[in-house]
C-alpha cells in the first residue's frame, strides 16, 4: 500500500514520539499576525526563551487594519496598540515583517502564497484557522492557538495527534458561472460542518486538477468550515508554474531539486485512505447560505429547506437558524433583500476573484442598488496595486462599489468594517456565524464573488448567471 501526501509530509517532519504518545512535528513555515501572537511573545519572554528559527516565521497585519485609511496611528487605540506590539515583537526577535508602510501588507493567507513562501511538502501553521488555505500547494497547513504559537516560536515544533485522510474526488465539468466557492460550499453542505473532524481532506479529481492556484486556495481555505483541520491538493505543474519566479521560491539550480522533492510528496496511486467520497461537478449550482453555519446552504435556484429535511438532532439548530436569519422554510433563496455586499477575504480576495467580477461588469452599465453598500477589498497590497494598474478599481467604482485598502475587512468584525443592526450581507467570506460580521444581530449570506456582485446590483440575492447572461 502506498502513502498519501499527508502521511509522507507528516513522517518527514516527525521529530519524536512524545511520552504521551503525541507526535512532535517540525514546522516548515510559521506565519503570524497581530491578533494571536502578542500573548505568545509575552509567554516566550516570561519563560526567558528566544525564537529558535526566526527565519522561518513571517509576520503581517491583517485582522485589525482599517481599509478606509491606513494612516497611523489608527483611530482605534486598541488596534494601534496591537500593531505596536507586533512591530516591537518582530523587531526584537528579528522576524521578517510584511509592513503596510512598505506596501507589502496583506491577509496572511494571501501574502504567503504570493511571495512564494508557501511551498509543497511543507508543514505550515499560523494562529488562524484559515491556514488550511496553504494546503492548495500540497502542504500540510493548519491553524493553531496562541499557546501553540509560543511553542512554534520557541521550538519550531508542535505536539500533534495524527489525522485520518479522506479523499474528496470531484470529477466532471463545472457548469458556466460555477466557481471554486460554490464547489467548496457544496462539499461542506454534503459532508456537514463537523464531517471532517479528525480528518485531513485531500481534494482530488479532474475538476480540481483543472483549477488555478487561486481556485484551489478557495477550496482548501474552507476545509476548516467542514470540520477538517487541514485540506490539501497534490502539487502538479499548475502549482510549479505559479511558484516559479516568486520572491521566496527556489531559483536556478535549486528549482529542479525542489521540484524533485515536491513530486516525491504526492500521494501514491495506491495510497490508503480512511475513506473516499465522490461528487459530480455537473451537480453543483451557485450556492448561497441561508443559516448560521457554512453548511446551511442551498442552490440559488432552490429554497430554504424544511425542518423535516434534517435529522432529529439537527432540528434545534435549524430552528435557531430560521429564527436568527428571519427566513421561513420553503422560501426561495433568490429574492432575499440585502443591505451590504462584500467581495474580499482570504477565501476570495485574490486577483482572479476580482477578475471574475470585472469580466461581467466591464463596459456595461450595471449599478449597485441604491440601498446597498458594496465593498471591494483586495486581499493584499500587491493584489490592490495589480488591480490599479489594470484599471479595475475604476470598473468597480463606476458601478458603485467602494474600492478599499487591503485587509480582512468585513469578514470578521475586528476593524471598522462591520454590519450594523440586523443588516443582511452578501459576502464572499467564509463564515456566517451569528454576529460574525460585527453586529450581534447582523446576518451573513455566503456566496461566490460573482454572486455577491449580482446581489449588490439587484439589491437582493439573484442568480448571477441570469443577471449577467452567463451561459
Amino acid at each position, binding site marked *: 500500500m502506498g502513502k498519501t501526501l499527508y502521511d509522507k509530509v507528516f513522517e*518527514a517532519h516527525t*521529530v519524536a514520539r*512524545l*511520552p*504521551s*504518545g*503525541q507526535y*512532535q512535528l*517540525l514546522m516548515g513555515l510559521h506565519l503570524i499576525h497581530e491578533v*494571536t501572537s*502578542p*500573548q505568545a511573545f*509575552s509567554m516566550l519572554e516570561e519563560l526567558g*526563551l528566544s525564537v*529558535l528559527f526566526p527565519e522561518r516565521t513571517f509576520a503581517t497585519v491583517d485582522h*485589525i487594519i482599517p481599509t478606509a485609511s491606513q494612516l497611523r496611528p489608527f483611530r482605534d487605540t*486598541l488596534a494601534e496598540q496591537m500593531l505596536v506590539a507586533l512591530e516591537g515583537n518582530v523587531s526584537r526577535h528579528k522576524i521578517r515583517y510584511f509592513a503596510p508602510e512598505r506596501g507589502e501588507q496583506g491577509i496572511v493567507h494571501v501574502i504567503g502564497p504570493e511571495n512564494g513562501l508557501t*511551498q509543497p511538502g*511543507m508543514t505550515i501553521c499560523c*494562529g488562524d*484557522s484559515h491556514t488550511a488555505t496553504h494546503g492548495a500547494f500540497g502542504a500540510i497547513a*493548519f*491553524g*493553531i*492557538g*496562541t*499557546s*501553540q504559537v*509560543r*511553542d512554534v516560536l*520557541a*521550538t*519550531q*515544533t508542535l505536539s500533534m*495527534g495524527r489525522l485520518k485522510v479522506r479523499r474528496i474526488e470531484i470529477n466532471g465539468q463545472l457548469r458556466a458561472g460555477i466557481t471554486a466557492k460554490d464547489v467548496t460550499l457544496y462539499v461542506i453542505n454534503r459532508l456537514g*460542518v*463537523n464531517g471532517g*473532524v*479528525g480528518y485531513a481532506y485531500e481534494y482530488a479529481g479532474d475538476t480540481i486538477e483543472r483549477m488555478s492556484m487561486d481556485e484551489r486556495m478557495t477550496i482548501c481555505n474552507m476545509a*476548516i468550515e467542514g*470540520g477538517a*483541520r487541514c485540506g490539501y491538493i497534490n502539487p502538479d505543474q499548475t502549482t510549479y508554474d505559479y511558484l516559479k519566479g516568486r520572491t521566496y521560491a*527556489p531559483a536556478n539550480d*535549486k528549482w529542479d*531539486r525542489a521540484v524533485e*522533492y515536491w513530486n516525491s510528496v504526492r500521494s501514491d496511486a495506491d495510497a490508503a485512505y480512511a475513506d473516499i467520497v465522490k461528487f459530480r461537478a455537473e451537480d453543483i449550482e451557485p450556492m448561497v447560505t441561508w443559516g448560521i*453555519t457554512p453548511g446551511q446552504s442551498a442552490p440559488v435556484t432552490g429554497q430554504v429547506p424544511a425542518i423535516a429535511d434534517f435529522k432529529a*438532532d439537527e432540528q*434545534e*439548530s435549524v430552528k*435557531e437558524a430560521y429564527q436568527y436569519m428571519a427566513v421561513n422554510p420553503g422560501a426561495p433563496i433568490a429574492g432575499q433583500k440585502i443591505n451590504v455586499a462584500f467581495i474580499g477575504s482570504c477565501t476570495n480576495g485574490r486577483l482572479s476573484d476580482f477578475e471574475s467580477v470585472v469580466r461581467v461588469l466591464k463596459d456595461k452599465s450595471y449599478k449597485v442598488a441604491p440601498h446597498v453598500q458594496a465593498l471591494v477589498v483586495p486581499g493584499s497590497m500587491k493584489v490592490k496595486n495589480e488591480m490599479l494598474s489594470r484599471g479595475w478599481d475604476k470598473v468597480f467604482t463606476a458601478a458603485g462599489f467602494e474600492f478599499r485598502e487591503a485587509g480582512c475587512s468585513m469578514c470578521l*468584525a*475586528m476593524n471598522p468594517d462591520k454590519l450594523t443592526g440586523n443588516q443582511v450581507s452578501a459576502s464572499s467570506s467564509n*463564515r456566517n*456565524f*451569528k*454576529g*460574525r460580521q*460585527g453586529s*450581534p444581530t447582523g446576518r451573513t449570506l455566503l456566496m461566490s464573488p460573482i454572486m455577491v456582485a449580482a446581489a449588490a446590483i439587484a439589491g437582493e440575492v439573484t442568480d448571477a448567471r441570469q443577471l449577467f447572461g452567463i451561459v
Partner: protein
Amino acid sequence: MQDAKRITLSGQGIVLRGNDIDTDRIIPARYLRTVVFDGLGKHAFEDDRVQLKQSGQVHAFDDPKFAGAEILLVNRNFGCGSSREHAPQAIKRWGNGIKAIVGESFAEIFFGNCVSLGIPCAVLDAASMERLMATIESEPKSKITVDIQSKKLEVVGGSSFPIVMGDGVRQQFLEGRWDTTAELLANKEAILATAKKLPYFNSWS
C-alpha cells in the same frame, strides 16, 4: 503552583445546549482587540447572553442556578470556527473558572487549545449527554466528577457514564504534560536533526 496533573476534576455542572457553537459566539471578535487574555471571562458568550435576555430568556452563563459551576456540558462540534485561543481562555476565566468540558464532540483546534490550557475535553455519546444534561438541569447543585484515569464521568450519588478521550492527550493530562514547551524544547537535538534532513530547510542542497 497548581499541580499540572489532571486526574479527576470535580465541580458543579453548567448545561449549555446547542450544536455547532462557534468561537465567535464564545467570545465576540471585538474582544480580541487586546494584547493580553485578562478580562475575557466576563465577555464569554456576551452577544448570546444579551440577546436571550432581551427576549426574556436566560443564557446558561447568566443562570443563577449554574453559578459557581466548573464543569461545562455541551453538545456537538463545540468550539468550531476560528483558532482563537481567546475562546477557551474566556471559558477558563469565567466565574470560578471552567476546569473541564464534556461534550458530544469538539472542533479540532478548540480541543487542542484546551489541552494547552490544561482543560480536558471529554466526549460522551449523545444519549448519555441528554440524560446527563437533564439531570444537571433538574439538580444543578449535583457534583460531577470527571475521572480521566478511569475514563468515566460520575454524578456523585447518581449515574456514571463512560467518557472517551484519545490516549495521547489523556496521558498528557494524567502526567501533567499538557504544558508542552519544555517537553518540546528538551528534544532540541532531534529538532535540528530533523531539520537537517529536509531539503527545503537547507537551501535545497
